[in-house]
């Protein structure tokens, strides 16, 4: 399969590259806006779970009309993200209270007009767990929102549709007058992803935003509400009309009569968690796919570094597989050894 095959399979991926978006998700926010007009009058916005940054790009382009950088945008993610003009970045876990406090600090005496959250866990494949974590991201985002969103403000967040989703809806309904569930055309048909668009922020009277176990207090467990007839049903709206391309369809590279030019991907994550493992693989020293191959790094006292370097040997496991054993004190030293052995 060539490098163009993803371009053919995913029209939004290709368009994102052509139009300079860091991720195809940009279209989801654009399509949500075309249906719900979420950017109207917005000058201060928070983008939770923002990396690699395409939603921040959309916010920056949409909120700064006529090229002046007047809008205030704060972007938060676990992952580091390449800088964006006019976007303040915070790196951290939004489910962690201390991160939430840091975000709130940016809005000391002010309110945000819009909070968006496209957060998603790196899915494990265990659907119940993934859906649970996703719901916690949403509640964390909601909690941050209760601290900073202005009255009648808008909150947009990704959800995973699962069997307990009615519970989430009813929790959102406590804080917002209007709650919709929407799916942009650019989101794939088979995906469990959808978005809640919550308009008209109006917390219950006397509600005091707090940081005391914030996630759990939203989670009142009323099973009648979950399953009973009183369960809150949220309208489901598909946004983006049929003139928008279909994210499940395959398109010819000469789509819409335009001449095709291959574009390199825009922005991959700055440093994936397994970067170190990958670097080791790429250096060709480690072929983890081969049976019996492994690498161990020992963290021993500093003083003994040189002695350990000598121990850097190819050892044999019982199956006579060479396995590289490197003994050193930290990762920096590991790289040195790699360089020496070149």
């Amino acid at each position, binding site marked *: 399969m060539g490098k*163009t*095959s993803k371009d*053919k399979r995913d029209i939004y991926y290709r368009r994102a590259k052509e139009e300079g978006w860091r991720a195809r998700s940009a279209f989801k926010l654009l399509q949500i806006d075309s249906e719900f007009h979420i950017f109207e009058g917005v000058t201060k916005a928070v983008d939770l779970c923002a990396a690699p940054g395409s939603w921040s790009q959309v916010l920056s382009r949409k909120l700064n009309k006529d090229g002046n950088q007047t809008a205030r945008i704060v972007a938060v993610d*676990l992952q580091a993200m390449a800088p964006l003009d006019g976007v303040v970045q915070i790196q951290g*876990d939004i*489910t962690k*209270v201390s991160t939430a406090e840091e975000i709130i600090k940016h809005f000391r005496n002010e309110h945000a007009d819009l909070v968006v959250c496209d957060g998603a866990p790196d899915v*494990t*494949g*265990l659907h*119940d*767990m993934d859906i*649970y974590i996703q719901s*916690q991201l949403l509640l964390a985002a909601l909690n941050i929102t209760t601290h900073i969103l202005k009255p009648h403000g808008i909150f947009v967040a990704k959800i995973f*549709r*699962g*069997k307990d*989703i*009615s519970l989430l809806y009813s929790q959102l309904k406590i804080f917002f007058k209007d709650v919709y569930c929407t*799916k942009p055309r650019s989101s794939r*048909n088979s995906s*469990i992803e959808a978005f809640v668009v919550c308009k008209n922020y109006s917390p219950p009277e006397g509600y005091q935003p707090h*940081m005391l*176990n914030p*996630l*759990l207090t939203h*989670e009142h*467990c009323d099973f009648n509400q979950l399953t009973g007839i009183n369960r809150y049903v949220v*309208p*489901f*709206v*598909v946004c983006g009309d*049929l003139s928008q*391309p*279909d994210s*499940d*369809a*395959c398109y*010819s*590279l000469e789509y819409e009569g335009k001449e*095709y030019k291959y574009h390199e991907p825009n922005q991959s994550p700055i440093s*994936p*968690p*397994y970067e*170190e*493992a990958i670097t080791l693989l790429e250096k060709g020293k480690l072929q*983890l796919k081969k049976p*019996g*191959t*492994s*690498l*161990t*790094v*020992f*963290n021993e006292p500093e003083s003994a570094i040189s002695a350990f370097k000598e121990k850097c040997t190819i050892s044999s*496991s019982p*199956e*006579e597989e060479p*396995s590289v*054993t490197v003994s050193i004190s930290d990762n920096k030293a590991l790289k040195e050894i790699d360089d020496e052995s070149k």
Partner: protein
Amino acid sequence: MSELLSTDVLAVLSVGDYIFVGIGYTLRVYKKSTNNFISKLDVCYPDKIHGIVKGPGNYLAVFGGKQIGIVEVKSSNKTVLTTLYNAVHRFNDWVIAASWCSSNNEPSKLAILFAHNCLYVYDWLKNEAKEFQCEEKCILYGGSVTSDKADNFVVFAGTVFQEIFIWAVRNFNIGEEVPILHRLRGHNGVIFSVTFDPITSLICSTSDDRTIRLWSVGINSSDNGIQKWKNANISLMTTIFGHTARVWRAAIRKDFVISIGEDSLVCIWTKRGTLINKIEAHHGAPIWSIDVPEDGNTIITGGGDGAVHVWPLRANTNFVTKIIPLESSNDVPKHIGLLNSTSMVIITQTGKMLTQNKESGLKEVSLDTTKYASYIVMQISPDRKRVSLASLNGYLTLYEDNSETRCLQRVLEQKIMDSKVLSMHWLNEDSLLVCGLEGCMKTVKIVQGSALVISNHLLPQSRERWTTTAVVHENLLICGDRAGSIHLFRIGDVGIDNLLTDQTNSCHIHPFQSLLKIHGRLGVHSCKIIEDKLLTTGRDGTLRFYKLQKIDGQKTISPLQIDKMPMDWVSITLKTCTDLYVLGFKEVDFVLYSTAHQRVLLRIRCGGGHRSWDYVLNDGNFYFTYIRDKQIHVAKCEPNFLATLAVENGFHTKEVYCIQPIPTSIGHNILISGGEDRILRVTHINGCGSDSNNNQKFTSMALLSGHISSIKTLSLINLQNTAECTRNLIFSGGGRAQLKVWLISLTFEKNAVHVGNLTCVELASHMLRGTDQQQRKSLQQESHQCHYMDPETRYMSINAYRIPRKPNFILLLLGCSDGFLRIFSYDIETRNISTRTAIPYYNRCILMTHLFNYEENLIALTMATDGIVNFWCLNDVVDDIVEDLPDKDKLVSKIPILPFAKLGLHQCGINSYDLKMLKESLFILATGGDDNLLCLVVFEIKSENGVLSLHKIRKWNSASSHSTQVTGLILNESGSLFSVGIDQKVLTFNYRYDDIKLIVSLVHDTITSVADVQGMTMCYANDVDSTLLCTYGKGFELIRRTR
């Protein structure tokens, strides 16, 4: 009621000779020594079991989602009875881990760690909890809790953001936040597991960053209780890289660390991080759960393929290699062969022949060096008693192993070929096939010390013209050659054993059947007859099966399935009473593969298959000898020990996209399934419904490979369905616009199903854009453009229809992701697939298609991501196929047919449907959408002057029955509608249409444990009062609905 379930196994626990397994919400018990299922108990409905923890007495804590059940286990001599103690305990937070209080006076207390980094000390008798919140409030992905005799609890918590927290509680004031004692930093990603092993005093953590980290805990021996942890000195000791994907969990047991991961590997390490063994355990599916029983001999794993396996922890201690030295240091071994497990023959570079055995060591055998100076072909007879040599000038020499003197004696030396002997093969204990130059082949029989030529044959012309293998069967001589072809020769009328003299007549010289280049240009490697099948292997990495059939009184072969082996060079098949081993080479490794277990049992780094090597299997011991670095190596192991049968069988390793039951006239449930793992599976559900202990099992009957991308859809045409046999054409399609046609037939012996009676043959394979090579070629020709412009297409849906007017022709309707509705025809006789028409459909991905016949009209339904159901009349297309049968695909055209009717039912994609005829011209259609909507429409189709029209009569909608997309629907005759969605709800509705009203009411709901449900089909219920539903997606489940 759930009758059978195969899905992710998230919890395993071994207690004594019993294994407790959590699958879905059910706790299952097996006996380890016999692999038998014993009993099951529903515990956490509707949540999945994520953990099982052994408690004091006979209690287990079983948790999943936000629930914990206390299960009491009573074992009598033969069975184990599990009962749920009271009701399950529900919490409002996700349970990460649980542990029993170890102090004896409080057997009813559990410490429960929740995802919000808080701990409950919970009395399950009184339903009372003491709650402790850690000062750091965040979400945990993994963690554990330990307790000591004095009721101190220590929490090891893993976060999404690289950190491990250690905190401890003891009768802390509730409401106060508990401080963190230690923060361990070092991982670069989400922490999936953290455990502490008190014996080694190590903390072991696993992560997204693909590492396992061991942290040493230095504890001051004078400290007690929580103080001990406060003052502990914790530091990162070892970082282990060895997995190629996320590492889910790891366990420490005495001297070993055992880790499991998304890459389907079980890795066994020493505490110093030296890798001892990597087991490729669950066929590529992630491994979720592990337990290492205290006996320290076995490992139990549960995987994403639904399987549960028991592995030896120390398999390699049974694996011995030794080197046999030659006396003279300047001579090197060139050929080796094993006479039995302790003795071997060696021919050296200098032309010496040696034997070596335990009793007499190395001994030289006399050899006529004038004949055998520089060139020798050596073969060992099947009974390993004779050694045959052949020479440059056509001599055949035979040695016999004298069991008394334990040395080789020459018994024959005779010139049998006018030329150099290129190859030689034993056909049975006293006959050989010898192949010389120019394809000259002779079969030779050893009779009273001399070699008689029985027959002469001529190997067809090829570049390297010699045989590589040969077998005889009745009057057949079957040879494989270096050019990759298989040839069949007749030898007399009765077979080689009854031929004494040369009865050659012309029809014997040339093959009467040849399968040219079937194993590719690197050649055939072996031929073997097992029962009525021929098995061949070759250097194309495949094992091929053929059926031996009598046609006009003569046995011939016809190809059956092809199995891709996990090796490049497939050498030999070896039948044992319980298994069929395949031996071969992958790069520099020798590989021993078990077909019964579908896994590699053994790898030996021998340098590759080009060197001389040999093996024997003796009393369950496998000996493998090879020459490497000019030395003779012998390896020994017990393959039986390397693989035990699965405790629970596995199914697909990834999402299942389609399941079709095979029609049988006697109510067997045989399912064909395909999915993301690209394998087409044939599965037999044993003993549905009737089994008293309510334990249905399933067995995999065949795994068919060949699809290069996911299998999205299946369609079936039944050719025969009698009490003796069912024969079916299967059309499978999916990614990369690939379509395959298979013939799957099964004969029944006394109504019973046996794996041996199933045959699966790939009849045809088709790719819309040609194979990758063809695409590349066409690109090179049109040099001006540098990208292949056409879209990649997935076949989303296939319907097959046998044309009544032309029963040899099958019309195939394909819904494609590039928005085209394509029509192909398949010719049963020529096995030819021709493309007929491609109807464009607004560039929308077509998700579902359906074909039905109504008053001589062939009508197609298409459903796409635009939420519209379109109705097409295909009469013209059928006429085209019937009337005009071009040799070439000249009919390929894009006729702009338009649908004759449209129903806009959904806002976006239609993921499921079912259609039933209510009465003459009146139909009911159920559709389920990506917009969570369930829709029922009653419509009428009219035909006037050959023009079809549709009238919508009634519609019923429900937006709230399912909270997610609806992915499976079944309408049955008796007025029930079954629906299932990604929300895992299985709903039963009653529907009734009475000419005015369409009345639909929900009558039942339940939850399926299959996540990511892709669809639902119906199986034989074997009971008139019930329906057996099969939901599939992440695994499959059989659910019985009784009226």
